[in-house]
């Protein structure tokens, strides 16, 4: 059955190879067409010299996102720098770093957590998360929190708590998401407008940055050369935590 010197086996092989190539190219094309282009790279610069350790950011975050007891999207650590000559603590507020290479994302077994292609914010899909907490083990910065179901004790009935997160306005109930899900800082993305822009003058700005009395938390678009964060990063020496892990955090610290 050799047609023009091509055996059946060779013919089958080339057909298979051709089909595989087509499939890969089609997949790439579909991905290119459906993935929105990167518009922003939201990030922060945190000036530890300006931080007084008042924890107003922690409170502002809790109020903005209505997080239950035991869930903090940002915390303030207060330890001396390792190897420093005095025991003066360095205050560090620590939100999610929205890494460019987030180690928490690929470990999710159900694709419930992902990095938004448009602006790089790492989010959790509360309708899909199964609560295995693998991403918590995978995050090297301890930036993820699990909603264990603990409830407010000094506030009105639990059902009255509404969180604006992800513009979903979920009413807190004992058996509905996000109870049993992993939660994390979203850079208050519910304050973005339809086109994904924040507006500082209108107060649509991440709660911690908006609240900080010492202006120690500076938020902005790292891709925009004119933004305040970009200017600071050009002018001053900023560091990122655990740079050696290759996670490429979007949050910088000024020491």
């Amino acid at each position, binding site marked *: 059955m050799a047609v023009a010197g091509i055996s059946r086996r060779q013919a089958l092989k080339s057909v298979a190879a051709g089909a595989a190539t087509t499939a890969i190219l089609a997949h790439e094309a579909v991905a290119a067409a459906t993935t929105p282009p990167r518009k922003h790279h939201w990030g922060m610069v945190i000036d530890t010299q300006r931080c007084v350790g008042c924890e107003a950011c922690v409170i502002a975050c809790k109020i903005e996102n209505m997080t239950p007891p035991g869930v903090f999207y940002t915390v303030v650590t207060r330890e001396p720098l390792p190897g420093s000559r005095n025991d003066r603590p360095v205050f560090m507020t620590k939100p999610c770093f929205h890494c460019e290479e987030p180690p928490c994302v690929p470990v999710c077994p159900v694709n419930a957590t992902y990095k938004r292609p448009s602006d790089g914010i790492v989010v959790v899909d509360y309708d899909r998360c199964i609560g295995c907490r693998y991403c918590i083990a995978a995050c090297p*910065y301890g930036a993820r929190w699990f909603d264990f179901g603990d409830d407010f004790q000094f506030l009105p009935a639990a059902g009255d708590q509404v969180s604006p997160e992800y513009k979903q306005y979920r009413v807190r109930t004992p058996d509905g998401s996000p109870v*049993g899900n992993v939660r994390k800082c979203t850079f208050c993305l519910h304050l973005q407008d339809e086109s994904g822009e924040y507006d500082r003058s209108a107060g649509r700005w991440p709660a911690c940055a908006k609240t900080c009395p010492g202006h120690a938390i500076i938020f902005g678009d790292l891709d925009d050369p004119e933004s305040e964060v970009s200017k600071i990063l050009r002018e001053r020496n900023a560091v990122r935590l655990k740079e050696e892990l290759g996670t490429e955090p979007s949050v910088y610290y000024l020491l």
Partner: protein
Amino acid sequence: MAALSEWHGRLEETALAPVRRTGLRYWALVAFLLAVIGWGAYAYSVQLRDGLVVTGMRDRISWGLYIATFVFFIGISHAGTLISAILRVSQARWRTPVTRMAEFITVVALVCGASFVIIDLGRPDRVLNVFIYGRWQSPIIWDVLAITTYLTGSITYLFVPMIPDLALFRDRLAGRTSRWRGWLYRVLAIGWNGSAAQRRSLASAIGVLMILIIPIAVSVHTVVSWIFAMTLRVPWNSALFGAFFVAGAIFSGIAILIIVMAILRRAYHLHEYVTEKHFVNLGFLMAAFAAIMIYANISELLVHGYKLEEGVEFHFRQIFLAEFAPLFWFYLLGGLVAPIVIALLPATRNIRGMVVASVLVTFAMWIERYVIVVTGLHVPLMPYEPASYAPTWVEWSLLAAGLALFALLITVFTKVFPIIAVWEVAEDHEAMVGAPGAARRAARPAALETQDV
């Protein structure tokens, strides 16, 4: 020849006895186990109602007793593979009478282990998302694939060599047992009549299965270890983890098998078939694996301890000196050194000694899993005080219920299925008696048996 047929009859009677007679003690045991499981179900209902806040797990130590128990159960599921597949491949004949028990343990332990993953989930109602939205990059999906493959494989591997025995039950119990049992054996025996053609197919099927099941079993515990090793946590950062977990799995699997053997031997009077030789041989095997575990521990601890990087220092302090020191030292001395000593000393190289060693190993291996999971998350990621974790009554209750479920499933299995591989034992016996010089070779096990009974 009369002796042989008499021997054969006795073997069949022993195999059939658990199915024919059920004593009060059996029902008392079942009732007790059901009560423990019922208590666990209550604890789980509390957890479902109030959320995982009823456990001791919190944001920093977010995996605890449940995940440790999952790893433990998946580990002991390696009993079956080791005994039946590895020893079958190496043609170690002595293992024949205990194969079936080992294969029971595999299937039951896998079921119990998998249930602990679901217990650990924050949203167990969404467990099917794993199949709907599964993402191949996640080691958890590798685990789902490996464990379901292993479960399918080990059920097949339990079932196929059991077909001739199921046919024996079908024939011997025909009309003398309840209707559902008769139906069950008829269906499961799938028309076995012992013809030469059937025997040939059976032999080749077992031959394929025993080879296939070994890489599957190895992959399962390797992938379980990778769940930990794939993260950026200091104590889990080890390329040795896969091999270390597989060795630990087989090690704990042997221990559980020895315990189950001792209980079933006494309960069902299997003294003629499960002899001291089985305990001692398995005890030696267990000691060999203890040596492998010691080697792996030294390798792991020395490589990291010599360099003593920042997180490692904290980790070493917690396992050798601080919080976890009692558990870890028990694991090293009671779980790894003691079994070797017990197997080496002639005074303790007997059934009782091996059972004691196995109980120690079982405790130590659960503790090892617990220490691995909790200490891994205990090393602080950021400059803050380390978190603490202690399991609550809900977690302990579910652990008890898990162990009770394991015991219950084994107990029920022994009442439904043949607990010794009758045809294989008979085949081995005939080969031994029929072969030239058989009398001489048969003398040794017989001597052991008389000593033992």
